[in-house]
């Protein structure tokens, strides 16, 4: 599974992209975020407030209860501010 971080999530985790292999118990976005928090203090800080995080799975918007599977590209980012 590939995880991408953008904007302040990228800055706080200190990584733009990482390949991960979460355990079988991680089946949805909420579970994935919980598991990612344990990767270090930067991750823990970046991911502590899930209400501030938006998610896309394979470049489609998703929710906290959306299922994730091996091979997915999961992106975590703040609300968008383009235009």
């Amino acid at each position: 599974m590939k995880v991408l971080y953008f904007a302040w999530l990228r800055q706080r985790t200190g990584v733009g992209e990482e390949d991960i292999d979460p355990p079988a118990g991680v089946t949805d976005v909420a579970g994935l975020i919980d598991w990612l928090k344990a990767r270090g203090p930067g991750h823990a800080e970046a991911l502590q407030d899930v209400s501030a995080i938006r998610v896309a799975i394979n470049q489609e918007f998703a929710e906290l209860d959306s299922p994730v599977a091996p091979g997915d590209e999961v992106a975590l980012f703040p609300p968008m501010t383009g235009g």
Partner: protein
Amino acid sequence: MTIRVQREDFDVGAELKRLTEGNHAIGGVASFVGLVRDMADSKTIGAMTLEHYPGMTEKMLTEIEAETKNRWPLEASLIIHRYGRMEAGEQIVLVATASPHRLAALESCHFLIDWLKTKAPFWKLEEAGDGEGRWVDARDADDAAAERWNTGPTPKKHAAE
């Protein structure tokens, strides 16, 4: 129907000319250009950097443009969005729509920029006068502006104005 996501600046006049060239069914062209302004929340801004999600950006812009075409009778449309570092006064984004009808052009252009602001994966990092970078917060007003197009009495397709 054109979508471009690019680092470099664009020439609004040349883009709008290309949009309508040779198509005499077009009665109106509406456009919006977003620029980096030097003030935000009472702070002076010297420059900003736009980060985006390559791949998903193009995908979302394509979906937004398709939705626009579905709602209004358009002859042509255009979205150009830049990324990277831009100084105050620089152009960030151009959206333009061309239709036989004035109202369709004006409304669809407004819709395009409203939806783009909340649905395309871009993030702004502003450089304040003190050199500090600050990630711009999403604004409730932008969500409300985008939401308006879901609930408003917008007809599916105007046969004519």
